[in-house]
């Protein structure tokens, strides 16, 4: 087990290194740079050259990359060109917010998607068809549309705040008051993220449940007269969890690194929004920092996925 964990940590380190390096170099190769984008036509060529020199963007790409790399191995990700703040601080602040949002969305999606999948996979008839239909609709809706519809509903009804993470009035509140305010703001973005994910989990779980119900050990249980409810929720469910568990970690990682549309629309101050701003401004150091955080989430997600799979399927534990 110790060797396995060591291999996974090494894999995670390699992944973070490769992804952040690739992100930085690709951002460099994209047309335009931080100075041309943030100054546009307003800076004279002399001013632009001076700004490039100030940020070190006048050096060859290889030298910039090596300079960044030599700092990054000491866990110094440099300063953001856009915000003139340390990248590490910015990423930590936002990653925590994104993690909170992603975990809430995952919990919602799991609570809704898995039971719905069990239901639609174990039943025939109108109810199961409705569940499948709703899932297909949710899967076909882009995140942008889902987010905007939810924001519109919130604006019209006043049930939830239209955006943001905490109210301006929450400053100075107790810790419990602050968390209550966050919980008041969380449902809208969490739901926007959770709805398509719940549909994905429903579809996976439905298929896996249908397969599991055809397995010989389940048929034997039915033949022995075990009640159907028990067959489904006790025998078939655990056997059907493997496909879902195998993607669970990746789903979590995708949530963490792919929530930027929801974060932009709902003004959630997360990592996705930070990456979006960094990419638009060609802030190479911030892009690399955000990519490093995203790939770290991916590595952690795959580890969680493997552990969940081992729990769900004893054969995996035996290797």
């Amino acid at each position, binding site marked *: 087990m110790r060797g396995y964990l060591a291999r996974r940590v090494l894999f995670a380190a390699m992944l973070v290194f490769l992804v952040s390096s690739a992100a930085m170099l690709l951002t460099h190769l*994209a*047309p*335009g*740079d931080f100075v*041309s*984008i*943030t*100054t*546009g*036509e*307003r*800076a*004279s*060529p002399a*001013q632009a050259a*001076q*700004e490039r020199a*100030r940020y070190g963007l006048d050096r060859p790409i290889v030298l910039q990359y090596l300079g960044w790399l030599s700092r990054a191995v000491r866990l110094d990700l440099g300063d953001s060109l*856009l*915000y*003139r*703040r*340390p990248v590490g*601080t*910015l990423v930590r*602040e*936002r990653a925590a*917010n994104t993690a909170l949002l992603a975990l809430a969305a995952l919990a919602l999606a799991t609570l809704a998607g898995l039971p719905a999948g069990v239901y639609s996979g174990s039943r025939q008839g109108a109810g199961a068809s409705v569940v499948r239909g709703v899932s297909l609709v949710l899967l076909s809706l882009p995140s942008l549309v889902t987010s*905007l519809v939810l*924001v*519109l509903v*919130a*604006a*019209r009804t*006043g049930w939830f*705040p*239209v*955006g*943001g*993470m*905490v109210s*301006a*009035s929450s*400053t100075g509140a107790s810790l419990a008051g602050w968390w209550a305010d966050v919980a008041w703001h969380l449902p809208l973005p969490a739901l926007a993220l959770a709805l398509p994910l719940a549909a994905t989990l429903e579809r996976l779980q439905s298929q896996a449940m249908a397969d599991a119900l055809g397995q010989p050990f389940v048929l034997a249980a039915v033949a022995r007269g075990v009640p159907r409810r028990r067959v489904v929720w006790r025998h078939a469910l655990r056997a059907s969890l493997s496909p879902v568990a195998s993607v669970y970690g990746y789903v979590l990682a995708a949530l963490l690194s792919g929530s930027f549309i929801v974060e*932009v*629309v*709902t*003004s959630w*101050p*997360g990592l996705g*929004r*930070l990456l*979006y*701003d960094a990419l*638009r401004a*060609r802030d190479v150091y911030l892009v690399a920092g955000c990519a490093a955080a995203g790939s770290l989430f991916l590595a952690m997600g795959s580890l969680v996925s493997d552990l969940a799979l081992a729990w769900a399927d004893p054969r995996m534990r035996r290797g």
Partner: protein
Amino acid sequence: MARFRSLPAPHPIALALLALAASGACGRQTPAPAAPPAPRELVSSIRAEPRGFNRYTGRDSVTETITHLTQARLVRIDRRTQELEPWLAESWSASPNGLEWTLKLRQGVTFSDGQPFTSADVLFSFRAVYDPGVASPIGEAMRVGGKPLAVTAPDPSTVVIRFPSPFGPGIRLLDNLPILARHKLEAALDSGTFAEAWSGSTPVSDIVGLGPFVIERYEPGQRLVFARNPRYWRWDESGKRLPALDRLTLEIVPDQNAELLRLQAGQIDFTQTEVRPEDYATLKAAADAGRITLVDLGVGLDADSFWINLRPGANQARPWLHRVELRRAIAHAVDRQAFADTVFLGAATPVDGALITPGNSRWYATDLPRHPYDPAAAAALLESIGLVDRDGDGVREDGHGADASFTVLTMKGNSLLERGAAFVRDALGAIGLRVDVAPLEVGALIDRIERGDYEAVYFRFLTTDLDPALNMDLWLSSGGAHVWNPLQRTPATDWEREIDRLMHQQAATLDHAKRKALFDQVQRIFAEHVPVLQFAAPRIYVALSTRVANATPALLRPAVVLWNPDRLDVREGKRASR
């Protein structure tokens, strides 16, 4: 709710008895003290995170907006009337030749931390803005003919500014320069770290100024909260110290659709941008229902622009792209009213001039050569330069038999620009020119424009100042913003040479009427040679919640409402906190 409404109204005497009983039950012998008034507070939005709090190093519009709230200038231009008004300088006088200006500073003004404001702060601000290590984005606007102003301070309340040459706008250019606190920033300037000073990680308590507000807190990714500066130096007519508001919050809302929904839901009181044409109907309905106020500011200052790359060496295989007849044909080929109706959904005014829209009434010339919609005239112009449809396929060919086609770059994701470029493409298709529209991400687009790697572009200029002498880099052939052929060592054409001469002359003329006459000539030459074509200028509307009082929105970006923040107020009767 209906049940309560159906109850009969209680008798006044019964109410009085109840009140008496209640006061006795509470054991109070004296009337309860009046509740403190609800704070006067407004909420607005910004679409991006502030990149810092130092306008001397920040080019972005958010930093500029924050500067309007927290800093002050020596003089201010009233954005509505374009008149110059005293600000930190309460009076001034000029030498007869207009080269030397003496400004008297207000007495008793202090920064938000209590330190007195003196001429030393003005000297420091000039030193910082001209410091080569700072490379301030406003440094260029503070030069005349590329030379800095010479500034001296004979005493703590007097500043003498000497211009290197006669300059028509005079001290209007001081509106660009927020006066910084020497006691806070001099050490950073001396040590060469001024560019890093007042960044996003600076404690907000360190950021002081002479503006109506101070930054109370900055919650990254969420909001900026401004509290009234208790030491602000302006008073209203009734003798009450300004600003009128106790607090102003700028929520960070990156998505414009979400911003609009927040405005409609009453969660923000106004935005920093004008209403998009596609949002007008929704907001008009809200205005008709009394939920918001829609302010019509008239014709905007900026119209989307189309230009062809006229740099030497560009488009060598298609020399006809450099011909003025082509540009005039394009000007005749576009039905500007249809353009306004289609691209701006009717919320625009057709324009056919020289980059100055009717919105800039102080400088707009009315009697310019025009290019009315006339496809036949356009076709004749194209034929005069050898572009004829020889094979009858609907597309003209040049003398070598190659199709008369070119590509127009525009900005991806901007619906107005994409619609405008598509309209131009269709209009030119109707006269036999094949145009491909290539929307590019903004970074790639600017990169292509800077490198001159394009055939034509459809994009938007943003007016940074209404006075043409403060936009010389656009008009002069040597200017970096002379987009169709920038940074020329010597003027490439006779008409550009003439524009250079007229622009230098008008910038050095002190009399406004003479300057206007000279600039009219510039516009006339420009309209004849049409290096940049415009088709419609949007009509600008600003939406405000009905809570907002004393707002004076103006056309000049970025702070269309917040350029005049100290009188902003909450309408009486609508002060309850949200």
